[in-house]
């Protein structure tokens, strides 16, 4: 008998791909002997490296040639079930290209682009708040009976130099400037922390990160970031991929929030402490500069939350 073929579509980006990992694992766990494929942008493929719940990773390039190739491959392979976690017309088109008997996605009122829902055989109205739980609801609707909250991530590979001793890892950059904590605050952190502060970012972030005096600059790709996060004693993050990576790896630390809602996009799993002012206005508009609510979080507050998070970790280990 041919395997039941499942297609997972989540093209980008780091945090969102991580948030779809439990749902993809749940599909594989729920459908015995199924074949699970995931379509993703080549840039984010290192996040799926060696994932034991996936049988195939299909890259979707941005070039016309790449798109045509992937399109042909999907038409050829034929899938029984497709789940689009992204909710864009583009991702829905990828799911449609696979000619699956059933295509599951979010209801048009919840999909990022409502028109994407036109391609789904089922547009699900989810009731959970957090994206991880929404994704799990989606696969439950698609027939997954065993919902796993596991984040199978690769080991990562060392890139660049990291301190030999314990260190705190911060990833100051976010997809949009308004989600960032003011860069100069990291200088205060580096001065006041008892452990060395490592600031990580991709190669194009080097000019900004090297302005942070007293911090150890670590430039890496995704694999290097995974390795550094695994080795870090604790992390300090904002609403961006590296923070979600740390949460998925169960790291203690602090997540600083401003414009976005931690109930929906916050760190999953509870090892990171969330800092957000009570009067922060929620908006998903992509601002360029650090939001006022981000400025309102003081260095002292971050240090205190970090100490509490580490305390909780110790308490958790001895319990």
């Amino acid at each position, binding site marked *: 008998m041919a395997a039941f073929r499942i297609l997972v579509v989540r093209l980008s980006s780091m945090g969102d791909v991580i948030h779809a990992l439990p749902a993809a694992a749940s599909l594989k*766990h729920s459908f015995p002997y199924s074949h699970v494929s995931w379509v993703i942008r080549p840039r984010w493929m290192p996040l799926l490296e060696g994932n034991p719940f996936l049988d195939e990773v299909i890259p979707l390039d941005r070039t016309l040639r790449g798109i045509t190739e992937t399109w042909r491959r999907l038409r050829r392979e034929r899938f029984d079930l497709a789940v689009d976690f992204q909710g864009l017309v583009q991702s829905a088109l990828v799911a449609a290209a696979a000619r699956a008997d059933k295509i599951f996605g979010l209801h048009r009122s919840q999909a990022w682009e409502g028109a994407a829902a036109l391609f789904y055989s089922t547009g699900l109205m989810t009731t959970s708040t957090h994206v991880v739980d929404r994704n799990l609801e989606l696969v439950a609707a698609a027939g997954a009976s065993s919902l796993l909250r596991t984040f*199978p991530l690769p080991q990562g590979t060392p890139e660049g130099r990291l301190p030999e001793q314990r260190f705190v890892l911060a990833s100051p950059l976010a997809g949009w400037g308004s989600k960032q904590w003011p860069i100069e605050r990291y200088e205060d952190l580096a001065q006041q922390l008892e452990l060395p502060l490592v600031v990580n970012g991709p190669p194009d972030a080097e000019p900004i990160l090297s302005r942070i005096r007293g911090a150890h600059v670590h430039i890496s790709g995704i694999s290097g970031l995974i390795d550094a996060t695994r080795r870090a004693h604790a992390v300090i993050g904002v609403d961006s991929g590296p923070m979600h990576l740390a949460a998925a790896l169960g790291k203690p630390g602090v997540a600083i929030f401003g414009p976005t809602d931690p109930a929906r996009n916050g760190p999953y799993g509870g090892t990171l402490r969330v800092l957000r002012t009570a009067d922060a206005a929620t908006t998903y508009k992509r601002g360029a500069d650090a939001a006022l609510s981000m400025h309102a979080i003081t260095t002292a507050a971050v240090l205190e939350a970090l100490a509490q998070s580490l305390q909780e970790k110790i308490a958790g280990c001895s319990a």
Partner: protein
Amino acid sequence: MSAAEAAKLAAAGATVVSGYFDPLIASHAQRLALLKRNGTPLLVLIATPDHPILPARARAELVAGLGVVDHVAELAGGITPQIQLELEDAARLERLIEHVRARQQAAS
């Protein structure tokens, strides 16, 4: 974890349990919780049946996620598990089949 590291842990007195966990079910988690003794590390060895549903690494990942489990490795020669959950599973399946048969006979 490598087989050599697992053997070292077993020699140092860890509680060694093997099983298929294909897939992991609630009773496995309960059984492992019962086998966990204070101060003794719990080492779980992942055995593989003839036609596994999930790859060994996926099963190892799920078992490693359980709070009571300290170490996970794939089952290799040289270490003898103290408890074999795969045998317990087989016995339980046998009992279930017997039970269903008995019910069917009673009904007919």
